[in-house]
């Protein structure tokens, strides 16, 4: 019997492609957000509401990841923003190579921002770097205040956490401040935003302002 040492990270293939993607984004000055969260956390609804506001300042495209259907891309296109749909055929997360393949379908010279909506899943996407600048975790109040501590790895590397559906607080018995304390306990550096529907309008201006600011900083570098 002989032994051979290998010492290779199983994520190295994904990480290499992610680094290539990151270089492409950098050379075009495109800011990229990798948005993840459970199914039903409100990722697509969040996009539908912030895209018109973002689109007024930044040339934006969206890449949608789902197991099946074109439904989300069609929803996004109604906002007037270009949307590409990846169907993973059962895979639980997006990988950097899937993003690379989509990039040839976008005019990168005329973009400032790409938002990638990952497959609805709070576990697996966290392990796969796509080349993004911002990791955003979307979490609705209906999922329970202790969700961050039950699924810590997604929050551990998040740059931003968006707590959605805060208008439902009276119905779901969740204290948003406690939820925020749980998030801070895992990742004190994450910037936390809240969104809500109020009198028929979707409140997300702080988040929109933050994204425009961050994307501007990258462009400026």
């Amino acid at each position, binding site marked *: *019997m*002989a*032994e*051979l*040492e*290998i*010492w*290779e*990270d*199983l*994520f*190295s*293939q*994904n990480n290499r492609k992610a680094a290539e993607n990151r270089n492409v984004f950098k050379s075009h000055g495109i800011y990229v957000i990798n948005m993840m969260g459970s199914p039903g956390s409100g990722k697509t609804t969040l996009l539908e509401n912030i895209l018109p506001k973002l689109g007024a300042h930044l040339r934006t495209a969206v890449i949608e990841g789902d197991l099946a259907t074109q439904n989300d891309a069609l929803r996004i296109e109604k906002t007037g923003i270009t949307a590409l749909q990846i169907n993973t055929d059962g*895979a*639980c*997360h997006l*990988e950097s190579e899937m993003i690379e393949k989509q990039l040839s379908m976008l005019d990168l010279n005329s973009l400032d921002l790409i938002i990638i909506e990952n497959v609805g899943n709070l*576990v*697996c996407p*966290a*392990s*796969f770097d796509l080349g993004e600048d911002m990791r955003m975790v979307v979490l609705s109040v209906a999922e329970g205040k202790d969700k961050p*501590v039950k699924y*810590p*790895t997604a929050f*551990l*590397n998040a740059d931003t956490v968006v707590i959605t559906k805060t208008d439902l607080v009276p119905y779901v018995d969740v204290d948003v401040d406690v939820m925020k304390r749980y998030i*801070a*306990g*895992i990742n*004190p*550096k994450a910037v936390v935003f809240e969104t809500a529907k109020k009198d028929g309008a979707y409140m997300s201006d702080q988040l929109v302002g933050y994204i425009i600011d961050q994307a501007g900083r990258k462009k400026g570098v």
Partner: protein
Amino acid sequence: MHETALVRNLLATVGQAIDVHHIKKVNRVVISAGKLANVLPDALIFAFEAMTQDGPMKGAELEIRSVPAVARCDDCGYEYQADGFPIVCPVCKSNGFRIISGEEVYIESIEYEE
């Protein structure tokens, strides 16, 4: 639950080693999985067995060693095992940290018949 994706990468990497070293039969593959890598050992072994039904890795044993999560304190630089949440430095009580290991899954080595 992305064990098949990990096994696919494992087979590609070990497959290269098999080609380079002209290995006929692999008996054991040893990997180390970080506590934060979301790897389920049973699911990984199941996927590995299902995906090595023929070829030089058929019947090989997959050994998975667990690697603890290690954090480095942002404030005092102390490195400590991050067993649970919240992650707090045992020396200076700061909650600022960077994870320095525990998120990776490494193929350490293979054992093969010469």
